[in-house]
């Protein structure tokens, strides 16, 4: 049955105009991934308004292709310029940049792209099998189960995100508070508007994403005073072929990293820890751990496979439960709502051609992606040689266009600037931004689920514990919430000293 559906999906994804959109999406996405200040979430947010007039299936194909492209683009900057475009590309720089400086940029990029492809493909295959099952289970979910899953989503930022748990919680709360500004659709009351009519419509999360990630990132880049003096890489079919011949030797690393990536990735904020974990495992199991950090190809394969497996996996909860696993997935979810689709398990029943078209396009998008980046790496890398004096106003102007086109309100451009400054300050002070965006997107859904659950139980919170599925999920969520408290206590009990601070998720 699943196979027939996938065939249906391929019929959609392989239509010439959808294939063309995938090519455009991957190209745009790679450019976005290479440019500082324009990550996946932000790029998708800016281009989202352009999709309003498209059929939803074509629109989501364009957006997911941008997503894959941005993931590929991140590897180019990490390896050639030692600039991780995204937090999960940090581990790729450890060995990728030394390789590039040694003149092995070509093999490093080939290995990175191939690993990305393998990792993403692994996730997509698992999604193909698990998504229908998960959606089937989720159909039986009521409000308490959905609220429990929301709780789990946010608890994993606190328990697994690394960094300060208090600050992660603050980010989540700010997101929820911003989401509650405006008209309360249940009671019709105006909340937190303080008499300003402009606040009635609330804050649009797309504007928030563009400001927090786009403008904030540019300010941060300026402060660090980055100059893009990177290594150059020669690419030829010969180099690609030679690299491909040695890659199968590392099949264990591929398999291990893909599993780590998928497992970490379908929980929010999982891609970054997945890439570091996978790197650490690769080093531990390697016969030459001393070569890591000096330009070992395995050190490129491991984090890239894991990060992309996680990137793919983060789309699983989005299409089955309507709960995004990453900021980019959150923006896409916002797109679904704007296109008039109700995200969640019913999509599989009501819009099979949409869901399966999306899943099939993950296959085609990745195949197109890996071919395109391998063929055009020098062109993409050349973008970073464009002077900063052109890039900065260009990116800011594009951000303004994106922010305005969401609602056609000048005010949103001002919000974007304010969110930009907030993003800059938050990032400097280690407040993670991803949970804020997710909370802003999910705010209404979470509140409604909570309200309906409490109405069902006449106001008793016990409802989240006594229903079996929601009880189990809530228990796991509470465990994650408690993890930052438990871990130091557990370490002391076992007499292990505190480990070095882990790199942060943003």
């Amino acid at each position, binding site marked *: 049955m699943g196979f027939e559906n996938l065939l249906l999906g391929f019929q959609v994804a392989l239509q010439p105009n959808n294939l063309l959109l995938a090519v455009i999406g991957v190209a745009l996405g790679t450019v976005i991934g290479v440019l500082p200040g324009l990550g996946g979430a932000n790029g998708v947010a800016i281009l989202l*308004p*352009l999709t*309003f*007039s498209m059929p939803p299936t074509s629109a989501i194909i364009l957006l997911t292709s941008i997503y894959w492209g941005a993931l590929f683009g991140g590897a180019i900057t990490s390896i050639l310029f030692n600039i991780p475009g995204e937090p999960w590309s940090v581990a790729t720089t450890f060995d990728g940049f030394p390789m590039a400086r040694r003149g092995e940029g070509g093999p490093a990029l080939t290995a990175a792209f191939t690993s990305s492809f393998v990792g993403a493909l692994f996730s997509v295959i698992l999604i193909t099998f698990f998504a229908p099952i998960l959606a089937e289970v989720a159909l039986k979910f009521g409000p308490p189960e959905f609220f429990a899953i929301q709780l789990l989503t946010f608890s994993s930022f606190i328990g697994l995100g690394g960094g*300060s748990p*208090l*600050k992660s*919680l*603050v980010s989540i*709360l*700010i997101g*929820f*508070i911003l989401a*509650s500004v405006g008209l*309360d659709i*249940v*009671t019709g*009351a105006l*909340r*937190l508007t*303080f008499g300003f009519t402009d606040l009635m419509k609330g804050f649009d999360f797309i504007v928030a994403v563009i400001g927090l990630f786009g*403008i904030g990132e*540019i*300010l941060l880049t*300026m*402060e*660090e*005073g980055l100059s893009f003096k990177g290594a150059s890489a020669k690419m030829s079919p010969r180099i690609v072929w030679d690299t491909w011949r040695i890659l199968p030797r590392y099949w264990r690393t591929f398999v291990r990293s893909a599993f780590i990536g998928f497992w970490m990735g379908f929980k929010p904020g999982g891609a970054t820890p997945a890439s570091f974990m996978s790197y650490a495992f690769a080093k531990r199991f390697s016969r030459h751990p001393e070569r890591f950090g000096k330009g070992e190809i395995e050190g490129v394969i491991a984090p890239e496979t894991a990060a992309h497996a996680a990137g793919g996996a983060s789309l699983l909860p989005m299409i089955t439960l309507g709960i995004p696993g990453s900021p980019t997935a959150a923006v896409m979810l916002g797109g679904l709502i704007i296109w008039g689709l109700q995200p969640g398990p019913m999509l599989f029943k009501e819009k099979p051609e949409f869901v399966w078209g999306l899943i099939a396009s993950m296959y085609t998008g990745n195949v197109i992606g890996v071919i395109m980046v391998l063929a055009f790496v020098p062109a993409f890398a050349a973008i970073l040689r464009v*002077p*900063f*004096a*052109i890039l*900065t*106003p*260009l990116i*800011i*102007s594009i951000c*303004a*266009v994106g922010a*305005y*086109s969401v609602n*056609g309100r*000048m005010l949103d*451009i*001002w919000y974007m*600037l304010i969110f*930009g*400054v907030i993003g*800059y*300050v*938050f990032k*400097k*002070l280690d*407040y993670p931004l991803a949970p804020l965006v997710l909370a802003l997107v999910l705010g209404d859904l979470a*509140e409604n689920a*909570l*309200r309906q659950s*409490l*109405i069902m139980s006449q*106001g008793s919170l016990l409802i989240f514990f006594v229903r079996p599925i929601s009880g189990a999920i809530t228990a796991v969520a509470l465990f994650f919430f408690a993890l930052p408290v438990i871990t130091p206590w557990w370490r002391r009990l076992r007499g292990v000293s505190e480990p070095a601070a882990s790199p942060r998720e943003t």
Partner: protein
Amino acid sequence: MRAADLTTAALLMAVGALVVRDALRLGVGWGTDGPKSGFFPFWLAVVLLACCLGIIVKTLRRADRAPFVARAALGPVLKVLWPAIAAVLLMQLVGLYVASAIYMGFYMRWIGRNSWLAVVAVSVGFSVSTFLVFETWFLVPMPKGPLETWLGY
């Protein structure tokens, strides 16, 4: 860094207090048919206040002399920020296309010291291509000013 941390936490506490006040106005208890409008924001704000207190206590215990922004780094940041603010102000007056052309041209001339030819080519090129993509191709209208009106849009 410490001062910035404390200031941010204090500002967030002020936000929390505002939210609590508004939530109390809306009612935080049980209405006729479920929780009142203020219920959810109220508890969010209460936890927010508690978290910020926690952050303040933690920060006060930490000895940290590093400044939030190094003096040398502040210049480049402001050099991006204020032209951006000016550009948005300009968008309100003359529309997005003209404003971004002026903004790009100014920035390229001022920071990049590009030649006038490059300045004009890039800034006008960007605005015209954005115009074509958004106004004519995707039919997404952008803020427009006197120039566009004069041209008949």
